Every structure is written in C-alpha cells, then in structure tokens.
C-alpha cells in the first residue's frame, strides 16, 4: 500500500501540539505527507484515537543475555506456546513461545500487536553485538536498535586512568561504529568490574575501581562527555550504582549532580529511588528524584515500573543478581563477559502481598505522578525486569484512572508505604496526550529520532489507532489498526502483516590513531582478533550524529 488517508479519528500528536483534533493523516510511501489526491484509498476511523506508533526506550529483547534468559526458562515457555499468526502474503509466519522473555518472532508480533513499532535493547555487550543484530533480524515489524555497554570496560578504564580522554571518546565512537549500536550505556559504573574482583558494594561515586583515578564518577563524566561531544542523538544512558538497594537514592542523586548541566538519561529510576538504609529499612524516595528531574531540564529518565506478576530480572549488573539469587533461592545465571561487562539473570515474581514489591510498585507510580514534565520521564518496565512489555496497557490504566489505582493500592502490602506520596493520595490522572508523550513523543525526543513519535509531515508512517474504551487497559492492549512504515500490520485488531523492521544505529567519527593503541591491547589481552570484532553488512542508513 503506497497511499492511504486515515480520516475521522481524534489525533493525539503532542510533538505537533495536536490534542485530540479530528483531522486526516495522509501516508505515501511509508511516510506522512501533507495531502493526497482525493481518490487515494481511505481508512475511516471515526471516533477512534490516532497516535504515532509506540516507542520503547528501554527493554531487553535481543542478544546473548536475552537468549541466556530464554534458555533458562523452559517451564515458562511451555506454558505459553504461540501459534504462527495467519498473515497475508510476503513473510512466512512463525510460531514461538511467550512468557516474560518471548522468542524473537513472538516478541515482534506482540509489540506490534500493542501498537509499538520501535524498540531499543538497552544492554548489549559490544563483543556480542553481532548476535543482537541476528536476533533483531528475526524480530519482525519493529524498528530496533541497542545501547552498547561501556561503563565497565577495561580499555576504557585504562584511558581514564592515564588521562587519555580524547582516546576514551574515540574508543566510545569506535565501539558504536563497530557494533552498530545507537547509544552509550553505563550499567553500575565500575561496579561490574568490582564484582569480578569480588568487591560487592560500591559505597560512593569516588570508590576506586582498581585505581583511584578510575571511579564511578569519572566513568560517568567521561562517557557523558563523550556522548555529548560526539553529538550522539541520545545522551549517555545510565543505570546507576546500587540498583534495588535500600537507601540508594543518595547514590542516584549524587550521580545526577555529578553530571549537572550535561545531557544524560537515567534509566529505570524506580529501581534507584529508595530511601531507608541497607539491611534495615526501606521507604520511597521518589519525590526527591522527581523533584531533581523536574528542576533540571538536561536530565531525562524512564521509570522502570514494577508490575505485579512474573518477571525475569536480566541485567549486566551481575552483583545484584547474585543477591537476588541468594535472597530468593531462585535459579541464577551469571556470565562475566570479556573484560567488557557482565550478565546476571534470576526469574522473579512481584507479589502484592510482599512489602518490597509493593513499595517498588508505589515508587514507580510516584515517579510518573510527581514528574511535572512527561517529556522527560517516560514509560518503561525495564522489560522483562519490572514486568513484561505486555503489562504496559495495565500500567497506562493505573496512570489514567485514579479510582482504579486507588483500589489497587488498597490491595497491596502497606508495611513500607507510610509517608509515601501515593499513600497520601495523588489526584493526578494522565490525559491521552500525556500518554502519547510518555509512550511515543517523549521517547522519540529523548532518543533524538526526528522521524519517529509524531504524525507531522515527513515522519515515518508508524501509526497506532485505538478504539475508545473507558477501560484504558483494554483500549491500549488491543489497537484496532497499526501501521508500520505505511503498511497495515494490524487490521481490526488482528495481526495481518509482518514486514521486516529497520535497524537504528549511529556511525560517529573517530581519530583512527586509536586503532594502533587498540591493536596492541587486543593483541595482549583479547580472545577475539580486532579484525573480527566489528559487525559488517548493516543495510539501513545510520542516524546522523551532530559531528558527522
């Protein structure tokens, strides 16, 4: 289908300041155009809600750690076999399995079925990037990209230790180029390397990582600086130290202050917004974090909401997973990866009757409800860590429907909720436009994707159309129509087509004198030849960086 006029729907396109106006959206050759001839095919969507396709800024869907997680969960997959959908022409439909870490084809189909058309994998070990690309190739419909892990990398730490900051920046650029990544990811800066050295706790941003010249603070500063100097469309994407630990809000705020005035994205902030004291008490510190973000426009974040039910915790932050394994007795994967990063996986269930899970649920909702600027605090569950992406519709209902939220709040464990803002009552209900911001326009702006997240002329024709329902969970779980690059992939609520998605990546420039030094390092320490490191053959065009 090369042309289509979508007519009669209420358009929610906050990037273009359109809030529910009934207007036509015209599509030609996969993009949105200003107008079409009168005889162009028409899709009538009277009474429905029209938004850009959803964008997931932070999920774990493709790569070695995700597939280690899949392999760990046969019992979950056995409970959720998924038949190949009946598709029209073109691609051969594929079966799969679901659960919290679905197989690749099922991941693509399910995201599209929810109206999501772009997804970023948030944590890829650079050395294993080619597998992420292979898995994304097998994840249909959605456009995909990933963030390359760089906060615990031996070569980077060496550059910081010796004050070679230009080379550190060149290395970051080289990593993104050679992996086909989109942004720089830091997980527990320095803490993964320390875990490998059997040091299990990072107490302050100034703890030494091997040497006193390498600290979490320096790693944050150097990589935030590199991302900004390279003009990357998305700033450095930070998973702070001490995830999931009582009292970690101090570290989170210290990290934000360390980068004050510089663009930075802080991810799954729910997991980093706890008051209290390690081993003693827990409380919500969402208000402090929300207030900091509210008053610092250079900061963006996503929430990492916890949703009750099964999850799989899956992260580069290996030390955390060891703690979770010992505290829950659940099975545990750890993989230390090539002087670059780590990986830990533990299946988990968030239960309403559990005090900590209930606190986490409340902290996430407070971050949403206390943040003034939805453009800078967007929706995520850190899929599958806080819950599956399949729970997004229910999360949207919690944000839009106070009565539903308050009813739910009564059913959760109250032990740690004293004094929390949500327990005291928050009246705010998200509007449809605010939902459009936190699920598409905001992520697109944070990611620097000019052609995504909106319905203006020139945008990719990734469009989701919902039938109105007072039950917002129902409304957002079953879109009536989804278009991906102008192709109708969901019609009348049924998945009908599954075109391949595109890859979203950057190719920043770097000074290639780096390669001489890097070559020596590879020769001395790497188990892979430098010549075999880089991913080749990416077909799509890179997203430009400011330096390019």
């Amino acid at each position, binding site marked *: 289908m090369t042309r289509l006029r979508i007519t009669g729907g209420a358009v929610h396109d906050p990037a273009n300041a359109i809030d529910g106006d009934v207007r036509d959206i015209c599509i030609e050759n996969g993009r949105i155009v200003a107008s079409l001839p009168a005889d162009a095919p028409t899709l009538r969507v009277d009474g429905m809600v029209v938004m850009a396709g959803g964008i997931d800024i932070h999920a774990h869907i*493709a790569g*070695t750690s*995700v*597939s280690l997680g*899949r*392999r*760990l*969960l*046969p019992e979950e*997959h*056995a409970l959720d*076999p*998924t*038949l*190949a959908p*009946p598709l029209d022409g073109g691609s*051969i439909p*594929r*079966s*799969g*399995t679901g*659960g919290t*870490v*679905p*197989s690749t*084809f099922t991941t693509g189909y399910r995201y599209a079925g929810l109206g999501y058309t772009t997804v970023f994998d948030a944590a890829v070990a650079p*050395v*294993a990037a*080619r*597998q992420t690309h*292979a*898995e994304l190739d*097998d994840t249909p419909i959605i456009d995909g990209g990933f963030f390359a892990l760089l906060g615990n990398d*031996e070569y980077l730490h060496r550059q910081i230790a010796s004050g070679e900051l230009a080379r550190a920046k060149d290395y970051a650029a080289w990593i993104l180029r050679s992996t086909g990544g989109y942004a720089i990811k830091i997980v527990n800066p320095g803490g993964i390397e320390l*875990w*490998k*050295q*059997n040091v299990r706790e990072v107490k302050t941003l100034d703890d030494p990582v091997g040497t006193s010249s390498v600290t979490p603070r320096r790693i944050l500063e150097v990589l935030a600086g590199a991302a900004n100097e390279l003009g990357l469309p998305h700033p450095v994407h930070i998973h702070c130290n001490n995830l999931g630990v009582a009292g970690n809000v101090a570290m989170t705020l210290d990290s934000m202050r360390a980068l004050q005035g510089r663009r930075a994205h802080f991810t799954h902030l729910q997991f980093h917004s706890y008051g209290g004291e390690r081993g003693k008490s827990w409380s919500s510190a969402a208000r402090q974090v929300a207030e900091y973000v509210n008053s610092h426009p250079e900061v963006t974040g996503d929430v990492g909401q916890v949703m009750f039910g099964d999850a799989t915790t899956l992260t580069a932050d290996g030390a955390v997973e*060891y703690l979770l*394994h*010992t505290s829950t007795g659940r*099975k*545990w*994967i*750890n*993989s*230390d*990866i*090539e*002087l670059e990063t780590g990986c830990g*996986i*533990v299946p988990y269930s968030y239960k309403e009757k559990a005090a900590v899970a209930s606190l986490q649920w409340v902290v996430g909702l407070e971050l949403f409800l206390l943040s003034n600027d939805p453009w800078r605090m967007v929706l995520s569950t850190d899929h599958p860590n806080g819950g599956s992406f399949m729970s997004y519709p229910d999360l949207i209902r919690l944000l839009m429907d106070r009565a539903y939220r308050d009813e739910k709040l009564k059913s959760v464990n109250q032990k740690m909720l004293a004094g929390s803002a949500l327990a005291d009552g928050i009246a705010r209900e998200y509007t449809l436009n605010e939902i459009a911001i936190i699920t598409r326009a905001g992520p697109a702006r944070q990611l620097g994707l000019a052609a995504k997240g909106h319905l203006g002329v020139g945008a990719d024709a990734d469009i989701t159309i919902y039938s109105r329902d007072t039950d917002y969970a129902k409304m957002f779980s079953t879109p009536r129509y989804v278009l991906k690059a102008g192709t109708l992939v969901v019609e009348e609520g049924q998945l009908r087509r599954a075109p391949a998605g595109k890859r979203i990546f950057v190719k920043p420039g770097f000074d290639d004198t780096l390669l001489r030094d890097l070559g020596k390092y590879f020769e*001395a*320490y790497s*188990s*892979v*030849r430098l*010549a*075999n490191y880089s991913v*080749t053959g990416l077909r799509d065009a890179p997203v430009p960086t400011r330096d390019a």
Partner: protein
Amino acid sequence: MSEATRIEENVTCLGCGCACDDIAVVIGGARIREARNACALGVRWFGDGSLPGAIAGGRSAAIEDVLREIATLLRSARAPLVYLAPDLTCEAQGAAIAIADQLHAFVDGVTSSTSADGILAAQRRGRASATLGEIRNRADVVVFWAVDPAASYPRFQSRYAPNPVGVYLPQGRRDRTVIAVDVGAQRGPDDADVRIQMTAEEEQLFLASLRASLAGRALGSQSIAARVTELAARLNKARYAVVVTDAESPPSVPSGRADSLIALTQSLNATTRCALCTLRAGGNRNGADTVLTWNTGFPMAVDFSRGAPRYTPENAAGARLAHGEFDAALLVGNTSAIPTVVRAALGATRIVVIGPRASESTLSAQIRIDTGVAGIHESGMALRLDDIPLPVRAVLPTPRDTASLLEALGSAIAAQGVGP
C-alpha cells in the same frame, strides 16, 4: 609452491568449540595448502577445502525442480524431522528451523545426544560462567575436571587458560594454579600443579563433600576427606576460579556431574568468584542451541507438531528415531558428524541431505545436495563454546550456500500452501 597463492588472515576455525579466530589460511590452486596457527585438529577440519558439488537423487538436475520435489516430499510426511548437524552457520541453522516451523516438524541437533546433561542442569539451576576472554585475563585457579583439553581442544590452554598473560595475571602460567582432577580414566592435564584423583564411583560423594566442606559442614566420608579439604582450601583461596569440564564426553553412566559442578561453582561465589566453563566440540554447536533458543525458547528437541514449539528433551531425536516416529527427515549440515545412535536409527526414514559432501553420504538418502562448510566455504556467524558470536568467512567458493538454499526451500514449501 610455484602456483599463485593468497593468504586469508584472521579466519575462524570451527574444528572445535574454541573457535580460534587467528588462522591464516593459505590458498593455492583453489585448495587450502596450509592453515597456519591451527592445531592438528584444526588442520584436519580445514582439510584441503575440496568439495563435490553434486545434486544427487532428484528427478531433475535443475535446483528449482529439486527443491519443489523436496518440498513435496517433506510436506507429504506425517511426522518429519529436521536435523541440524554440525558445520552450519547460524544463518543456515535459522533457515532450517524456519522450515521445521513451517512443516510442523520435530527439530533437533547433536546437542540432545552429546551434551543434554549440562543444558538440562543449567535449566534447573542456572549457571555461573564466564567467557573465555574473562578466564584468560582473570582466572588464577584453573581446575580441569576430568578433562585434558590437549586432545579435543588443543589450543584451549595456550589461548585461554592457563598459559596466556592476562590483565590480572602479568606472568601468565606462573601466576596461575592448575589443578587436575582425575576421575577414573578421565584425567586432567599432565603438567598440572596439583592433582586430585578419585574413582568414577567416588565422584558424586566427592562433589557432595566438597560442597559441604565449602559450606562449613562436616565431610561425608573419611576416605576422601584429605583430598576434599585440599581442593576446598585451594578454591577458597582463589581470586577467580574456573572449573573446566567437557560437555561432549560426560561419564558413560549418568553421574550428576553436570548438576554438581554447576552447584559447586555457583556456591563458591558466596566467598570468592568462580565460573564454570563447559567445553563443546566443533561445527558451531553452541550456535545451534542458541539459534533454536531465540526462535523457540528452547535449545534442543523442539516439537512443532502442534503448531507451536514444545520442549521434549526426554524424548529427543535419537529416541524418537529409535521408535520409528518419523517418516521423513531433512538432515542439514555435515552428516558424518551426526552421532552414531542417531545415524543408526535413521534407517527406514525417507531422507533428504543438504550439506557438505551430501552426495558422498553413506546414508540411504533419496535426495542429496552438496553445499559448503561454514567457515570454509560459507560466511556468516558462529558461536564459540562460551556463546561469544564470531564471524566465519568463506575462503573458498561454495557449491551452493546452505542458508540461501534453505530459504529457497522454505519458499518452495510455502508455495505449496500454508500449513501441513
């Protein structure tokens, strides 16, 4: 060499799971003349690179006709098997799995016959592991549990551990303690610093006692107490210990070794750091497990007969073949590397082979199409034994590319109608 030669550098060898990627392959006269840096096993795996290029047994010589014929044969089967033999790229493995999905077939590979124990144990317990680069740079105590890599993984010690210099081991071998654990006739390396011996019958008790000792509990048996205490002390003193075990030659009698070694290495992380390293043989075996996992959620023995993946590791290809469950089989890859128990049971099944030297296969196959070997004639991705993905590169032309051929077969099957 008088003829013109060229050298392909940094070639990845799939002779075993080590996947050494520093091979310089010397080509002359369309033959491999030399595989520099390769071990004896690697040299054998590369061979001279010559291959037949036939299409045998079809009613026509035209590949399109033969693919249609195969599609008809497979679609008419009540219970087809798709079997992933070694020497395939991940791309070819993926294409074969897609066909199994289309056909509602059963798909499996060598893992279920050779290495299922370790995979099932890891699905019960998880696993504490590390990639080979991490082991190379960090492991100061290296335990070879009933394996001497010299025979089947010849360059493991020189490339990964214990020999190389590492970031935290500036003096290489001298900074490491190598412990050989001999279990009956399964011996560790001869040049180990410490040797601990036990009979096969003692192994389980030893492992249980070792875990008890590390947990500070009393030992089970006086007869092994001294050996247990010694090993426990050395493991506890390690900064970063690695236990290396061979997933391809488990004890002949099910012994629980895989399960116990996982539990041991996980529990050591309470006090120090420890990883388990499981050795896998060649031909991209980890690739088959992983590609199957991302496609279906399961690493082996996947049954699509109900339209969606079901996991039946207790009833894998070998057992099903022995029961005569399949009426057709598509064997993809190097059929000479298919385990004997599977080969022997293929008997009465109608067979199609697509792989290197298919035309020379001794299996009684109806149709045989020669393709190339991953990493010699075909490019793509393969996984090292630690699941690190590496590029593999064609250094010689392939008769026909397996992945492309399988995609064409998938289209031919689709063209004959949706669903079986």
